[in-house]
């Protein structure tokens, strides 16, 4: 074991992991996090704490992760390269480990032009791949990016994102392999709606030996309405929503119920794909959907077994 994280243990035991997402508030109230955590508690192995997601300023992922730990849950702290240089990142990584955070998801981050501070300087001193390698070296060296010795290594289970739906498609599995070479232990994918394409991506991952060296959690998300399905299809970069899903959402009488059903069906399909070690449920600002999805999919968190 590299980190003492529950997620690492669950995956090492070969159990199917369930993670979800918890976005910090646009304010300083810890109660918002406590309320969201209470909805997700008992239904997940760990929860991702987003880092200024879509470049919108929010409470820091490290602080929110600590509050989640106080609720008896395990956080996966997200860290993007957009807002900090390597000095700030390394001090935050050491601080996070000192606070008991054991999972770190390394991301490049959405461009600042998407968010509410489009005039901000985009830092991007590192990118996701060089961030991963830095964290790996901090843990296993243990050393800083500059080569200086670290006196007490941060014990972290290192993750990344992978998007099977971005271009060029033949490069997506190669890019994930690159992140594995850099040092990740697990990855969570972009939301899967087109299972066929995801299957092909997973086949490429197996061919490259990625699935033997990295636990892959398939990203899923319940659609709330036909409008959301259309928006995801047409407006969100790197998303692939098949027409049949959009049509199904449009035809549904109770679109929320249908959205959960679609999500459960996707979970049931990806579970059968060789190399899929768990699911990551992204019900952003709809945390209440998570217990319903896990119930209908018959999923129990690996840590609860």
């Amino acid at each position: 074991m590299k980190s003492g994280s529950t997620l690492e243990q669950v995956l090492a035991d070969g159990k199917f992991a369930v993670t979800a997402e918890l976005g910090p508030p646009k304010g300083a109230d810890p109660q918002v996090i406590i309320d969201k955590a209470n909805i997700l508690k008992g239904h997940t192995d760990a929860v991702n704490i987003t880092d200024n997601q879509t470049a919108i300023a929010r409470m820091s992922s490290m602080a929110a992760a600590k509050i989640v730990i106080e609720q008896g849950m395990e956080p996966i702290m997200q860290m993007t390269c957009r807002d900090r240089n390597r000095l700030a990142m390394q001090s935050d990584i050491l601080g996070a480990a000192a606070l008991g955070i054991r999972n770190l998801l390394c991301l490049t981050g959405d461009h600042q032009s998407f968010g509410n501070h489009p005039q901000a300087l985009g830092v991007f001193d590192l990118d996701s791949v060089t961030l991963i390698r830095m964290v790996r070296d901090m843990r296993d060296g243990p050393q800083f990016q500059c080569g200086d010795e670290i006196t007490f290594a941060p014990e972290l289970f290192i993750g990344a994102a992978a998007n099977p739906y971005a271009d060029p498609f033949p490069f997506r599995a190669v890019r994930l392999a690159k992140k594995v070479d850099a040092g990740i232990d697990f990855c969570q994918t972009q939301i899967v709606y087109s299972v066929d394409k995801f299957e092909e991506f997973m086949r490429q991952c197996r061919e490259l030996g990625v699935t033997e060296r990295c636990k892959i959690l398939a990203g899923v998300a319940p659609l709330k309405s036909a409008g959301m399905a259309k928006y995801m299809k047409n407006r969100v970069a790197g998303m692939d929503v098949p027409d049949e899903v959009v049509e199904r959402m449009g035809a549904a009488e109770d679109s929320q119920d249908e959205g959960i059903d679609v999500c459960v069906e996707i979970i049931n399909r990806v579970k059968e794909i060789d190399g899929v070690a768990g699911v990551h449920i992204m019900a952003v600002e709809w945390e209440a959907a998570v217990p319903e999805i896990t119930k209908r999919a018959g999923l129990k968190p690996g840590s609860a077994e």
Partner: protein
Amino acid sequence: MITAERKPFEQIKAVTDQFENILVVGCNTCVAVCLTGGEKEAEQLASQLRLQRQKDGIGGSVETLTVLRQCENEYVDAIAAQVEGKDLILSTACSIGPQLCADRYPKVRVAPAMNTNMLGMVKQHHVWTEYCAACGDCGIFNTGGICPIARCAKTLLNGPCGGSQGGRCEISPDVPCVWQQIYDKLASFGIEGNLSRIGGPKNWAKSNSGGPRTMKKEGFEP
């Protein structure tokens, strides 16, 4: 070349209104080639200012001249006689020009008429696009002769990121994904496999981030 575009007239006027005798100084190098701050454009700006000031009842004078290169002492020093008696030098050069004027004529106020924006390539007539970030550590041999520092919105060294779709960048459908271009270029040589090697981290100390830079040509010390 260095590209620069003229500030909106209202912004320039807000500055020039505070001064009586103005010298508009054009530059006949980069900004002349990009048709924004050469002799013709400097004269146009000067006459626009004269007309406006006449209308507004502001006295004084607006003269103009253009030098070959506003980034070299000898050309800037050569206009001393025309600068004499002026309250403001309004430069239509890239930002180097007004800075050098401020240095050579310390008693005269200086204002830029331009916003300097990039080291650009002439994509087609009257269209320039950013190609170089002057990072001081050129690595484009590894990326098919295409610079991701200047041309990727996130200066990635391990792209394309998850926001690349259909050859376009996530920030705008008008922006090509430079990492798709790099991938295609390497694939045309059959060496796209090189992209499985980890790039970076970048040494930003060689860029402006390491502090203002000075270049000296060996063997030509003064």
